[in-house]
């Protein structure tokens, strides 16, 4: 096989001396010959280092020997004949062509987008449902502590009123179930206004303003069922894991995890600022709608309180960047739920 002959440097691995040699492959052995060098290792005892750009090719010989050559074509022919380094030769081809590289860039963007859109929510849901409820106790306590320090004050509602609502909440909790340690908490919060949120362990917090805003206790029952919906679908944990996934992905892209390490615990932030994604809100609305239909035969109370909540918040802060789905859409869905029930579709 005279086509597989090339010039190279041989290093014996014991000294740094470079020996200029000729290398010939006879189908079984690499015959290395030069001044004071004569080796004939079997090809299966040699290792051809994978190709990398226009760098010199290296072949490792038994007993720490090393060949170094600029004759890349010869080594490529050797690889092709023996079927070596298939994986990284393929990578090498990708790296060699500008068109393929541009395709990789497009692929990178598309894949990242699709992964954030579908892959992460799926993985986050798996992880959230695999998390034992007991583990969510400390995280909920911690989150409530932070919220108490930064946004909340003790409730000013009369105890009788609170007991009334707690009794209603107990009924909702019993009905929806799920094995969480449900508890309804009241807080006053001039900063947050009328609001409610659910912690992963089953603690639900109502602000005094929300209680005042409701014109009818059925509206508050609707909000309770909505928040319990967040709990049973583990929305807060899923949100948390998704955020984590996004940051890990960015860190791979940027190649620096240090910038991510400084991110503080963000559950309180999720609850207060960002809110849930549109899909999560709609899912919680469905839980609430089902409960309301079963007990009152209508989803009106939740629609009403949603409408009033929007008005209350619109005056204070027009959150353009909010991920909350537009209230009209949520109300529309609730209305359709009721109609569907009425016409016997569900």
């Amino acid at each position, binding site marked *: 096989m005279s086509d597989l002959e090339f010039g190279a440097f041989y290093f014996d691995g014991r000294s740094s001396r470079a020996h200029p040699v000729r290398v010939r492959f006879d189908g079984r052995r690499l015959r290395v010959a030069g001044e004071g060098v004569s080796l004939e290792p079997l090809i299966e005892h040699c290792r051809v280092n994978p190709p990398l750009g226009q760098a010199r090719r290296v072949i490792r010989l038994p007993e720490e020997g090393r060949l170094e050559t*600029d004759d890349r074509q010869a080594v490529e022919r050797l690889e092709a004949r023996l079927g070596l380094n298939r994986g990284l030769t393929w990578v090498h081809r990708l790296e060699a062509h500008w068109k393929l590289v541009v395709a*990789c860039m497009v692929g990178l963007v598309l894949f990242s987008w699709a992964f954030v859109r579908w892959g992460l929510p799926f993985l986050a849901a798996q992880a959230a449902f695999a998390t034992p409820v007991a583990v969510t106790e400390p995280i909920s306590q911690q989150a409530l502590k932070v919220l108490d320090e930064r946004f909340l004050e003790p409730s000013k509602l009369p105890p009788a009123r609170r007991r009334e609502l707690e009794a209603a909440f107990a009924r909702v909790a019993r009905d929806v179930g799920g094995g969480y340690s449900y508890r309804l908490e009241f807080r006053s919060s001039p900063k947050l206004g009328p609001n409610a949120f659910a912690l992963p362990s089953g603690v639900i917090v109502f602000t005094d303003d929300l209680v005042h805003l409701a014109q009818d206790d059925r509206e508050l029952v609707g909000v309770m069922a909505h928040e319990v919906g967040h709990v049973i679908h583990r929305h807060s944990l899923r949100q948390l894991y998704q955020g984590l996934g996004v940051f890990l992905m960015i860190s791979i892209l940027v190649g620096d995890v240090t910038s991510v390490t400084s991110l503080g615990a963000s559950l309180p932030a999720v609850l207060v600022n960002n809110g849930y994604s549109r899909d999560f809100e709609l899912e919680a609305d469905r839980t609430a709608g089902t409960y309301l239909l079963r007990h009152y035969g209508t989803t009106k109370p939740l629609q009403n309180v949603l409408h009033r909540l929007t008005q209350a918040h619109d005056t204070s802060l027009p959150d353009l960047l909010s991920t909350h789905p537009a209230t009209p859409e949520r109300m529309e869905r609730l209305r359709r739920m009721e109609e569907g029930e009425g016409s016997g579709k569900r």
Partner: protein
Amino acid sequence: MDTTRLSEELLRLGEEFRAGKLTPEEYHEAKKRLLLAPENARLLEPPPPARAPRLEEPRAAQAVLEPPPLTAAAPPRLQYHRFTFTGSAGEFFRIWVVNLFLSVVTLGIYYAWAKVRARQYFYSHTFLAGHPFEYLAEPVHVLKGHLIVGGGLLAYYLLQYFAPEASLLLMALGFVLLPWLLHQSLRFTAYNSAYRNIRFRFHGTLGQSYLSYFLLPLLTPFTLGLLVPYVRLRQRQYVFGNAALGATRAQFGGEVGAFYATYVVAALMGLGVYALFAVVLFASGGLAVLGGDFGPLVTGSVFGGLFLGYLVLVLGMLAVQQHIYASLANHAWQKTTLGKLRFVSNLRTRDLVWLSVSNFLAIVFTLGLAIPWAKVRYTKHVLDHLAVVSYGDLEEFTAAAGKVREGSVGEAAADFFNIDVGL
């Protein structure tokens, strides 16, 4: 001065030094004066080989400076070798993009291969005396390290939510482990780097690592920072003085005086920057007062002044930082010997400042696409300013006995957290 004269001068200096007529300081100074004089630097530069030298003439790039024999008993040949970087920005860009793509598509598994490939690229394009360096780490081995460190990191994130106290504990543990990780990382990198098929070694002990990277930095605040130059010296001593190419140990003779001098200059530069900052602010304030009731002039000069002041501050501090880097790197290389090799490094602060600023702007304005270009450019610059002077050729290094199977956890941690060895 022509080539022959210069080589004779250098040989004479070497003879005198070895005969004990010159102190090491005098010798280094004289050598530096000779080698770095602009007219001599031109003589010493071999024609820059754009590509690796052809194999048909293997010795062409090697013997650059061969002096005529002075006596019958020929003295060792004096050789001067420049480091050359033959990589190209376009090629590395393509490798970088494909690496990124495959890392993301494989959900991070390929990252280990990507890391090794990128490093191999830079090693295999760094030539000294006709031969490239080689990076030998096994991607699978690197992957194990990444998985362990990644697992620890994930545990840290999750603990932040579920048990914040435990996460703090884990972080504290990380800090205590830092010198150990660093020690691991240095050993791993050295053992997996080779030149002419001779692996590097790192002989630093764990105790020295804890002294230089844990105890001394811990003491620094109590000395109002006066210990900083000394700590930097110890850290360089640790990294440079414990390196070896095969069986040949490096010697590091860095001097405390030079380190303190560097930091004194840096402090003066810092004061100058703040003074200039103050002047700019005062001037713009003064202009605002003179402007009187003319609104636009007032706001214009105040905002212009603030902007200019900020620019002065950022560029000034960058200059201080790069001065420290260039000056310490030059000194450390100058004072390092590896067998018969000595090093010449002539980085200049203003070049490095320009390089950092232009690289930063390029990366920002291309949304990161210029990262590979910037890396290649920076490497090229640093290697262009590093050279080796040797008595005898580079063919006499021998391998160290025994094999080392180093853990890759330290390397992965150094990579993930950008651990700085203080170089």
